């Protein structure tokens, strides 16, 4: 689907609802109340939304940037960021593909991305006219028939204020952490999904259908609410490496699953990791959390993280309903000078709740990555179970993988299992494959894909195929 859909995307023109209303004005860099008021006004938001943003801003002012992650980056100057900006003027962007990092273009080539799409992804000033009529109209009609709401968060705040107000910030409160507070104050883009009671969403929802290729939000806010017995599968991201002028990305994703609801959230993250020295790469500091609010509800996070200079994210589940289930399947690949600190938190609150964590980390080059996971079982969450498996694979001897598992078990009637392995990609395995005539690069990709199989099989089909290709490209030249 992906390539075809992307080709169609590249030909379409944004119509109502599928684009944040970007106008030509820009506020100067810096953050204060007037900037937030400006954003809120530009978005046509009601007073309560502005108040909510300001509340978040005041909390943020009192917080300090966290330093506990196993990451190394220079301090970020928050007053140097422009919090509301129109897309760059064409003359400020690369004028043609000739001005783009050739490595990036090479990668597009290898991933088989159509020519016209490459320019848009690389941020080139093309007159790509995005024509949404054909794809989006049919797909919106189909969703509307089922009663599903899928639109930008800005549109949702205007059109469905009650639904948004009822759920926004209930999973990730404004003051949850430094980056969540900042996001709450200034978010300008993101998705809203509501699946009504008893409805299984008739198609996989994908950000492909509403990504604003010209200027992806720096502070995205996504809210997905699945009512009783409803189900949805949501795909975020795209395998093509995306250039972005904004170095800091601090998104917030909130999922709410009511009784017997099931939300499956899959991510393929492949932001630009920077050049060979890590310059120009994106910092991806994300807060993702799902609330299994109803009994027997289930939330499943699956992620493939290959991009960004720095990734910092812990998709988590609050297992509040009895017999609710949380799952986290993750593949994180770092190469070059990338750094990743990722993992999950499973908070067992309801009785007989269960969680599964499968984390596969692959480090190559001079990269560094950490798995950080918390399994917390509250005293009243009796009969709860957790299974954690975290495996790291090292390629070469200049990279590092670290595991920080935390467990807080508040009762004696729960079962926790933890397995962890770290291995170097076996010289014997490589030699074996090569002695069959398989090239070293193909052998590495074969072994690594085998290592990740448990996670890839959780991905929706087309994502799984793309993820395998992506892994090969990411790890190219990492051996030898």
């Amino acid at each position, binding site marked *: 689907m992906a390539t075809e859909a992307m080709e169609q995307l590249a030909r379409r023109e944004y119509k109502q609802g599928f684009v944040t209303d970007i106008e030509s004005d820009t506020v100067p860099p810096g953050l204060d109340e007037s900037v937030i008021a400006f954003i809120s006004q530009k978005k046509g938001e009601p007073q309560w939304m502005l108040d909510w943003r300001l509340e978040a801003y005041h909390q943020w002012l009192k917080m300090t940037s966290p330093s506990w992650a196993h990451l190394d980056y220079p301090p970020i100057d928050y007053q140097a960021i422009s919090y509301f900006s129109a897309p760059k003027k064409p003359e400020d962007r690369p004028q043609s593909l000739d001005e783009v990092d050739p490595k990036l273009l090479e990668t597009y080539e290898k991933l088989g991305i159509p020519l016209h799409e490459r320019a848009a992804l690389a941020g080139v000033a093309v007159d790509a006219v995005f024509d949404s009529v054909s794809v989006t109209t049919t797909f919106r009609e189909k969703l509307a028939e089922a009663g599903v709401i899928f639109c930008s968060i800005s549109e949702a705040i205007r059109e469905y204020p009650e639904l948004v107000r009822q759920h926004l910030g209930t999973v990730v409160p404004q003051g949850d952490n430094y980056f969540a507070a900042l996001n709450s104050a200034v978010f300008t883009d993101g998705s809203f999904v509501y699946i009504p009671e008893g409805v299984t969403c008739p198609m996989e929802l994908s950000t492909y259908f509403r990504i604003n290729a010209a200027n992806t939000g720096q502070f995205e806010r996504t809210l997905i609410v699945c009512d009783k017995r409803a189900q949805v599968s949501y795909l975020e991201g795209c395998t093509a490496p995306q250039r972005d002028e904004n170095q800091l990305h601090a998104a917030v994703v909130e999922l709410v699953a009511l009784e017997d609801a099931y939300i499956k959230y899959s991510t393929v993250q492949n932001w630009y990791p920077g050049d060979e020295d890590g310059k120009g790469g994106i910092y991806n500091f994300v807060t993702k959390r799902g609330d299994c609010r109803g009994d027997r509800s289930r939330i499943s996070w699956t992620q493939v993280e290959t991009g960004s200079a720095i990734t910092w994210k812990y998709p988590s589940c609050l297992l509040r309903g009895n017999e609710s289930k949380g799952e986290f399947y993750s593949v994180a690949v770092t190469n070059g000078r990338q750094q990743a600190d990722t993992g999950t938190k499973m908070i067992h609150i309801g009785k007989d709740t269960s969680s599964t964590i499968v984390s596969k980390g692959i480090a190559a080059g001079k990269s560094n990555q950490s798995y950080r996971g918390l399994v917390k079982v509250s005293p009243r969450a009796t009969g709860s179970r957790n299974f954690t498996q975290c495996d790291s694979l090292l390629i070469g001897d200049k990279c590092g993988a670290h595991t920080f598992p935390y467990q807080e078990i508040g009762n004696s009637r729960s079962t926790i299992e933890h397995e962890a392995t770290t291995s170097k990609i076996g010289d014997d395995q490589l*030699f074996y494959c090569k*002695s*069959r005539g398989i090239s070293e690069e193909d052998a590495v990709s074969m072994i690594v894909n*085998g290592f990740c199989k448990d996670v890839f099989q959780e991905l929706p089909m087309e994502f799984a195929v793309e993820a395998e290709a992506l892994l090969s490209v990411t790890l190219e030249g990492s051996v030898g």
Partner: protein
Amino acid sequence: MLEIKDLHATVEGNEILKGITLSIKPGEVHAIMGPNGAGKSTLSAVLAGRDGYEVTQGTITFDGKDLMEMEVEERAQAGLLMGFQYPVEIPGVKNIYLLKSALNAQRAARGLDEMPAPEFMKLIKEKIAFMKMDSSFLHRAVNEGFSGGEKKRNEILQMLVLQPKLALLDEIDSGLDIDAMKVVAEGVNSLRDENRAILMVTHYQRLLDHITPDQVHVLIDGRIAKSGDRHLAEELEARGYEWVIEEPAA
């Protein structure tokens, strides 16, 4: 097909091979025997191109090309295939996927297109039946949880699919019970033809009851101390290696 001349090789600075000369022609089956530590495994490793072995003197040509100049995968693509004594496990990678990748990589190197899927499946089914293996093997991870005998059968299965010009079998009989040995031997025998050569490295004579060699070489202390026909193997079985060591090299 394979010409080894005065081959010297070291491992971590210790000279293990001390001047081996050996010539194998198409259609021939050679067996290299010898006591532990004589250099049998080193010879296989050098031919397959494993890291950590340094050739300090001598030449190896395969099909007229300098083998030492070829990468590991190039040797396989040129038709030299090694059957391992201890095949490694590769978790998560299906056996059938490895076979397909290997076959197509070799075809690509020879300028052929990928084998179409139906043709490939037909080939695999035929070969796996010949090796008396269950088709469920194809969907298990490479060598993972395989018994010793299953691993060896799997090595021969790869040979049958990849059809090398020179099959190099390193202690292929170790850890096999008599039934598995028969199946493995049948597999190897089915590879014999006038254009193909087989080089077996073995500690025991019993493999040679099932795969009859044209020539037997006794490797002692890094040199070929004696060569002969299949009767030499029988003599070794009866008398051990001592008499060869004591006998002055011809």
